[in-house]
Structures are given as structure tokens and as C-alpha cells.
């Protein structure tokens, strides 16, 4: 749903004339000798849900905290809506943050928590009451307005925290692992709720998460981070289908990675010979690399076809193996296929027909694996 929405939308990052709403320029943050954020430049456009995705310690939270103003950057600058906010203290920035711990004030009721930000701005009392009631209605917490945070469940606290960070109508909302404290079912439900709220209010979101599924669902674009650097920025589809590096391919979803040598390099296709595979990849996109260079081919498990018959496709993009393991997950099955060279390949197949009937592929059975030339992706780093 989210991906479909992102595709329907205009894609301002593809328009060179569009002005970014948030511009981060060569931002570096060091803690002593440790470089938490390393020379990051980023443009985020109005109305986006931008996800910063990475493992723990990759610098994504530090980057968010620098944007919120809690940490002064070592160098670089941040611009929001054309204003340089780099030196602005957090209480003056047109930015609000939703904390991972929610950071609700324990001595205040839900209503007081949400009203806190408006009271700081000396908003008239009547308007505060109206806006608090409105936002609490949006997150469906109006009936809990008089409760204290410790009287709420995790999901309710999360909604109060969201309401509190949205009530000031910030230009930019920063969300630090917003769904991490929720259980799986509630998390999935809340993801769509977040998207709906974001669309209703039109606020630009920057979400930090380590959960790639969450990033894929929420984001209009994802920035994958590692060791303080942004490795790749793209829509969820781009990141998944066209990973720019081995790290991204490996980090998002599961992937079979083969080392190989570039034996044929044409503008619209390349051929890669891989000893790992014991065969040749025919990849339907050009690569900018020297002939005979060592490259890697990333092949997603769900893009591999498994069959007993030898596929008639010339000779490239197919390999024989023996089924070593099968995991039946209900909606799909995972096969681990051992190739002649001993290399294991992961293959997933949707279980379109019921799997209790006979004739299905079983353990220790020789099989052929094949794939389309549009499926593999060559990465050079």
C-alpha cells in the first residue's frame, strides 16, 4: 500500500529544479575520536517520509539528534525550509521529535503532556484546548486525556507521544524508532496509522529505524547508513531491486551473493563468470567496471525458479544442485540448494498450490535453478 502510494506521488527528488525542504550539508559529528556521523549530505523534500535505516551504532540516531538540536555538529550545516538552523537551540527549531522511550512527562496527564508544547508558545488557553482535543481525537486517545502515562499501555503511550510531537504542527517531525516498543501485530497496524496521519497533516517525517520491513512500509525514500555514512538513498523499490553495494544488498532482505569475473561488458548487458556458481550470469544491465574486474552478483531468493527439468535458456543463468534443506513457512517455502562446488543457494517459492499433494520437490532431489536476466544485480563494491 505504502509503496503504491509512493509511486503514485510526485517524486521531487528526481526533479533537479525542486528545492529540498531539509538540506543537510557535509555534516560530521565526532565524539572524541569516534566519528558517529561522517560527512553526510542529504536532501529531504516536503511531505516525504524519509527513513534512516541501519544497524545499531551506524549513526542514524546521532544524525537525528543533530537535526533536533540536541547535539551540536562537529562540522557541516542543516537548513530547514531555507533557514540555517545549525546553531539554533532545540527550543527554537521548527522541529519536533518523538523519542524512542516516548519521554512522556510522568507527573502530567495525557492532556497536559500534549498541551505542554503549546503552553511554551503562549498559545491562548482556548486554542490550546481545541488543538489538544483535535490531535487527541486524531490518535484516538481523547477518552484517556485525564490519565497519567503510567496508567497507559505501550501502544497508548506511543500515540500520546505522537500527538505531543504533532500538536505544534512542526515543519519537520523526527521519529526515533517510533514502533520499536510495540509488538508485531500492533506495529504493523500502527505503521499504516502513521502513514495516514502523515498524509492528513502533510508534515515531513524523518524516521530512524533498524527494521528494514518498517522502513519499506513507511518510507517514500530510504537512506541506508553504515559506519556514520549514508551508503545509498532511494525509494524502497530502488533500494531492494537495485542495491548499489554488497552492504545494501545484504542488509535489505536476504540475498545470494556470488563473486565473479566480468567476461563480457556490453552497454545493455554483461556476463559474469562465477566459480562460486559454477556457471555464467547473464545480467541485463550495463556496468561501469573494467573488463575482467572482480564483481559481485546479488540474486534475491524469490527471483530464482526451482524445477526438476533442465530449463531451455541457452546455458547462462542456470545451475544444477541438490536440495539440502526445505523450510515450509505456510505462505512460502525456503529451499537451500547445494551446488556442485558446495555453495548453498537460498531459494524461496510462494506456495501457490497446496503443498500436501504429492509430486513436490523433496530433500536430496537433484534440481535446476534458473532466473531471468533482469533478476541479478551486479555490484562493484
Amino acid at each position, binding site marked *: 500500500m505504502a509503496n503504491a502510494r509512493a509511486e503514485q506521488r510526485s517524486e521531487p527528488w528526481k526533479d533537479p529544479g525542486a528545492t529540498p525542504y531539509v538540506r543537510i550539508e557535509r555534516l560530521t559529528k565526532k565524539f572524541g575520536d569516534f566519528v558517529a556521523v561522517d560527512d553526510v549530505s542529504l536532501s529531504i523534500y516536503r511531505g516525504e517520509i524519509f527513513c534512516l535505516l541501519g544497524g545499531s551504532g551506524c549513526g542514524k540516531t546521532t544524525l537525528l539528534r543533530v537535526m533536533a538540536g540536541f547535539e551540536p555538529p562537529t562540522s557541516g550545516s542543516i537548513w530547514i525550509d531555507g533557514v540555517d538552523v545549525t546553531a539554533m537551540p532545540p527550543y527554537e527549531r521548527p522541529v519536533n521529535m518523538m523519542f524512542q522511550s516516548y519521554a512522556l512527562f510522568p507527573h502530567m496527564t495525557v492532556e497536559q503532556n500534549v498541551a505542554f508544547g503549546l503552553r511554551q508558545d503562549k498559545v491562548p488557553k482556548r486554542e490550546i484546548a481545541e488543538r489538544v482535543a483535535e490531535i487527541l481525537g486524531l490518535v484516538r486517545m481523547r477518552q484517556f486525556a485525564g490519565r497519567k502515562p*503510567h496508567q497507559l499501555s505501550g501502544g497508548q503511550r506511543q500515540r500520546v507521544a505522537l500527538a505531543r510531537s504533532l500538536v505544534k504542527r512542526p515543519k519537520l517531525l523526527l521519529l526515533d524508532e517510533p514502533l520499536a516498543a510495540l509488538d508485531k501485530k500492533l506495529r504493523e497496524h500502527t505503521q499504516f496509522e502513521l502513514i495516514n496521519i502523515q498524509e492528513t497533516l502533510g508534515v515531513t517525517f524523518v524516521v530512524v529505524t533498524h527494521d528494514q520491513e518498517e522502513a519499506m512500509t513507511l518510507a517514500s525514500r530510504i537512506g541506508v547508513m553504515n559506519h556514520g555514512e549514508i551508503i545509498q538513498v532511494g525509494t524502497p523499490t530502488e533500494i531492494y531491486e537495485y542495491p548499489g553495494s554488497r552492504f545494501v544488498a545484504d542488509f535489505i532482505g536476504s540475498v545470494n551473493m556470488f563473486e565473479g569475473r566480468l567476461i563480457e561488458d556490453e552497454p545493455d548487458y554483461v556476463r559474469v563468470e562465477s566459480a562460486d556458481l559454477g556457471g555464467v550470469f547473464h545480467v541485463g544491465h550495463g556496468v561501469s567496471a573494467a573488463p575482467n574486474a572482480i564483481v559481485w552478483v546479488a540474486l534475491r531468493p524469490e527471483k530464482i525458479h526451482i524445477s526438476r527439468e533442465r530449463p531451455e535458456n541457452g546455458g547462462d543463468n542456470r545451475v544444477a544442485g541438490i536440495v539440502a534443506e526445505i523450510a515450509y513457512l505456510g505462505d512460502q517455502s525456503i529451499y537451500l540448494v547445494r551446488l556442485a562446488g558446495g555453495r548453498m543457494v537460498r531459494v524461496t517459492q510462494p506456495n501457490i498450490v497446496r503443498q500436501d499433494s504429492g509430486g513436490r520437490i523433496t530433500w536430496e532431489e537433484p534440481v535446476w535453478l534458473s532466473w531471468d536476466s533482469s533478476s541479478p544485480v551486479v555490484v562493484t563494491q
Partner: protein
Amino acid sequence: MKRGRTGNRRSSPFVQPELMAWMRALGPYRWASVCLRAWGMTGRAAVTSVPYLWLLLFFLVPFLIVLKISVSDIRLGMPPYEPLITWVSAQVVEFRLNLANYAFLWEDALYRHAYLNSLLTAGVSTLLCLLIGYPMAYGIARAKPSWRNLLLLLVMLPFWTSFLLRVYAWIGILKNNGLINNLLLAIGVIDEPIVMLQTDFAVYLGIVYSYLPFMVLPLYTAIEKLDLSLLEAAADLGCRPVRAFLAITVPLTMTGIVAGCMLVFIPAVGEFVIPALLGGPDSLMIGRVLWEEFFNNRDWPVASSVAIAMLLLLVIPIMILQRVQGQQMWAHR
């Protein structure tokens, strides 16, 4: 259990063999609990009753004795007060309750003055301790973890010396030819010594100095527990640091503030040593009045009634403390 078994092996000729076997089968802990249950007590009640017993013996009983003395008459002799109950004859018991001591406290301006002065002195000292102690506690709680223990140790270090010695030391520092005056005279800031000893200033200084650790420690505990992300959230919502301190830090450290204030205020009200050593003849505090009644006037009944009145005066702030702490515990479970 091993220890228990050896204990049971010590057979006693006074215990019947069947009972002995029974006890051995039960084991000492079970046996103790059976005994307790026979007396209508659980193990938990037995453990918690120890401090109650302690308080009963060493607080309630002495308190009742003092209460008894406070409603008797002074007399010459030993003990220097009339008994509460006297046998007039074989059939008549005389029970004399003398409330004149309390009436005397109320009527004589000296006592009222001393009480009010004690409350004032303790109140001002508590406020000073809070104003000095809060930034200290804040600084310690926000210091690097490796520094914190050292700083806390420095706060507690004065306790390693006798309280009396430390107060005496202030005499040497404050007196007319003491450390401060000599220093100021030597560098020519003043021409004649500033009178500091035997003034109210010296009393405040002594009390604040002596009781500051009691303020800092509970404050430190409360501030250290404060979640820093709450202050970040406040700043994020547009709250300036000073306002965030008042709206977030102060209410969330209220337990520490109340506990620290009570720990300073309550002993400061009854303080005797500091006003006696550092204060002037006119620094009238109730502890000193009490001491004089007891040892100079040898009027035990009046002295006792002064003590009882002081206790009642302190019960009110203690009840406030318990109320606030109860609320806070409920709020932050």
C-alpha cells in the same frame, strides 16, 4: 539445612524422644515457623516486628516517661518531680495531672519566642541548604560516572570526624582573632576584626555546614534518577532551560527536595550544640532552653513539657513529608 541437622542432633534429656524425632523431621526453619505460627505469627511478621520492638522500647517507652514527667510537679529531691500516682490510703489512689507546665509554656513569652526562633532558624537554614545543596547535587548527578563516587565521598567525608569537633573548629575560624579575621587584617582589607562568633550568622553557618550533606544526598538520589530525555523532550517542545527546570526537574525531584528539607529542618529545630557554641546569648533556640531547664533550673517537668511541645511541633512537618512521599511513590511507581 546441613547446619540445621547438626543442631538437631544435640538431643536434650528434657525433650521427649518422639518430639525430638518430630523436630528432626521438620528441620529447624520449619520448626521455627511452626512455633511462630503457634503464637499466631508468620515469619514475615517476626522479621518486621524487630524494628517495631526497637521503637517501642527506645522511643515510645521513653516518650511516655517524658510525657509523665511533663504533667507532674517539680519538687526538691530525687527524682526531682512528684509521682503521678500516689497511694493516699489503702483504698484511695491519687492521680495528679498537672497541666500547669503547658500553661506556663504558653504564657511565658520566652518559650514562645524560643519556639518561633527555632522554627525560623531551622526554616532559613533549610532554605539555605536547599539553595546550596541543589546545585551541588545536580552537579554531582550530572558529573561523569567515574567522578560521581568521589564527589559523593567528599560530601560524606565530614561525617568521619566528630560533629562536636567540627563545630568547635568553626570557633577557631570565626573568632575575633581567628583564621578569617587574622587573614583579612593581614592583607589589609579590614582595620578591626569583624564580629562573627556569637552572632546569628555563626549559627546559620554552623547549621548549614553541618546539615548540608543531609540535603545533598537525597537530592542527588532524586536528580540522578531523572530521565534526561524528559528534559530533551521539553526543549524539543519549545521550553527554555530555566522553564524546563521549573516545570520538569523540580516536580520530578520533589521527593528528594522534601526528604532533604525534612532531614535538615527536623534536627535543626531541636539543635542545641551549634547555637550553644556559636550563637550569642540572645540566640534563643528551643534546644538550648530545654537544656537550661534541665540542667540549670533542674525543672524536669517544665523541661519535659518543652520536649513534648517540640515533638508535637515536628510531627506536623513529618506528616507532610509522608503525605508527599506517598503521592510521589504512587505517581511514579
